[in-house]
C-alpha cells in the first residue's frame, strides 16, 4: 500500500509538477532523484498542485476528521494542531496550511496499529485554513478549520 503510493507519486510527479519545478529552477534534478522526500509537493506554491502531489484533489468532505487547533493564534510561529481521523482504516494524513508559501506542511503514513491521529505544532504566515487530507480504504477525505493569526502578536 505504502510502496504503491510512493511509486505512484514518483511516476505522477515526474510527469507533472517536478518538471515544472525543475524548469523554474527551483530544484536540481539530482536532488529529485536522490530523495524519497516529496520535493514536488513540498515545493509547490499553489494549493492545487500541493493537493495533487498527495493525491488529494477532489477529496470528499468528511465530518469524521476532527481538527483541533486554536480559533485565534497569537503567535503564528507555533500553532498547535491535532488531527484525529475516525474513518476506519486510515492509512495516511496530509496536513496543509492553505495560505502558506508552500501549502503542504507535512504527511504521515500509518502502519502496524498506529491510529489516524497526529499532534504537532506548525508555522502559519497568516490567517489560513488548516486542511487535512485523509486516505482510507483507497478513498480520500478532507476537512478544514480556519485559524486566525494575529499579526504583531498584540492579542485581543
Amino acid at each position, binding site marked *: 500500500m505504502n510502496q504503491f503510493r510512493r511509486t505512484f507519486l514518483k511516476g505522477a510527479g515526474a510527469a507533472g509538477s517536478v518538471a515544472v519545478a525543475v524548469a523554474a529552477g527551483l530544484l536540481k534534478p539530482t536532488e529529485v532523484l536522490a530523495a524519497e522526500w516529496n520535493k514536488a509537493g513540498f515545493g509547490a506554491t499553489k494549493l492545487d498542485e500541493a493537493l495533487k502531489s498527495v493525491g488529494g484533489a477532489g477529496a470528499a468532505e468528511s465530518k469524521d476528521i476532527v481538527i483541533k487547533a486554536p480559533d485565534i493564534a497569537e503567535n503564528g510561529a507555533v500553532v498547535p494542531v491535532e488531527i484525529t481521523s475516525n474513518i476506519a482504516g486510515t492509512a495516511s494524513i496530509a496536513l496543509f496550511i492553505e495560505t502558506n508559501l508552500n501549502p503542504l506542511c507535512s504527511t504521515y503514513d500509518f502502519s502496524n496499529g498506529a491510529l489516524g491521529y497526529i*499532534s*504537532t505544532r506548525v508555522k502559519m504566515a497568516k490567517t489560513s485554513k488548516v486542511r487535512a487530507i485523509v486516505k482510507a480504504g483507497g478513498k480520500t477525505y478532507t476537512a478544514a478549520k480556519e485559524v486566525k493569526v494575529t499579526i504583531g502578536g498584540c492579542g485581543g
Partner: protein
Amino acid sequence: MADPMKIRATMQGDVADVKVLMSHIMETGQRKDPKTGQLIPAHFIQEVNASVNGKVVLDSQWSQAISKNPFLGFKVKGAKAGDKVVVNWTDNKGDKNTAEAVIG
C-alpha cells in the same frame, strides 16, 4: 551532532500514546539575516520515522512549516507496556538523530 530528543510513551487503555520533543532550528529559508540582508539557508527535518518493537508505525515527511523544536504526538493500538519505541529523523542537510523509550 544534534541535541537529544525527549520521548515519552505511556499506555492509555489499549493504546500507546507517544510524545516526542525534538531539538531542531527548523529554519525556513525564507528569513533574512538582519546583518547581511542575505537569506538564511533552509535547515529543517524532512523525514521522521517511528517503530514499535522494530515494526514501523509512522512514516512521516515534513516541510519547513513545522515549528522550531518540533513536537510530535501519535498513538499506536496493540502496543504493550514494555515495548520499545524508536523515533528517528533526518534533516535536509543529512543530519540524523535517534531516540528510544520503553512504553510505561
